[in-house]
């Protein structure tokens, strides 16, 4: 079966996110004053071939742990759906 995974990667909450901070500081320049604490991460989509969802989950998790995410600085979560 083919699954599609959507992975959300975010910098750990305790770490300064300079991109987010810069965006937060500049939103008032376009007249938006109600937004605070922007944090910017990554969204990764990928397709995975696996026998079932459990196996797909294991493969995606391995990809995250080994390459897609540096767990020293980032956290991640993902969802899986059967690819139509």
């Amino acid at each position: 079966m083919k699954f599609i995974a959507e992975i959300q990667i975010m910098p750990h909450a305790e770490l300064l996110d300079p991109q987010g901070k810069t965006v937060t500081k500049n939103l008032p320049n376009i007249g938006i004053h109600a937004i605070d604490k922007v944090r910017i991460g990554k969204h990764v989509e990928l397709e995975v071939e696996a026998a079932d969802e459990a196996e797909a989950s294991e493969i995606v998790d391995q990809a995250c742990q080994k390459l897609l995410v540096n767990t020293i600085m980032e956290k991640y979560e993902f969802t899986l759906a059967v690819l139509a």
Partner: protein
Amino acid sequence: MKFGVIVFPGSNCDDDMVHIIGQVFNQKVEKIWHKETELPNFTTEDCIIVPGGFSYGDYLRSGAIARFSPIMNAVIEHGNNGGLIFGICNGFQILCEAGLLPGALLKNNQQKYISKNIVLRVETNKRRLTQYCQTNDLLTMPVAHGDGRYYCDAETLQSLKDNDQILFRYSNSQGETTETENINGSIENIAGICNKAGNIFGMMPHPERASEQTVGLTDGQQLFMSLMELKLETAV
């Protein structure tokens, strides 16, 4: 002693490194393409250099893809066997991604790429890379990075201190490691570290760009001479 300089797609300090090692210090040096899978000509007496640059365009995270280049298994094995490894800038990032050094390099805290000469304070001279320095020596050399904010968790930081693994801190010319001098927001101004065993080194600043009179800076020579265990008058 011999040097091997790994070349990844996007490395750009490899030629500087080969020049300094070969021409300034007259030591044996060869480039090693990242597609190689072995280091047959190198023993644990030798040093593998992981140079600066933008390997794989810094895609995903700086050093994250290079860490899985074919040569890296051999580099990791070399380090695990006690061989010397020295990573500079992107090389430091790669060694952290590979787990050869603790911690990670995050985006500079002010979201700017920094390219300028800075002052480093030597934190220990009990390690091979700094053995010819004195503790608290001040070295001037350039930095050129966007992702240089060294970070590790509190437990790792304590372990770095307990085991004398912090080699350099960003400093001012009076030797004060204030927040003002902390150019990229690194934890406790850390600019360079080594592993616990003391055979693997990583630093963000560029000693290979500060090792000959022609470029106006020579403080980097102290590190190369320490690493090579050369007599002080050897460098040209």
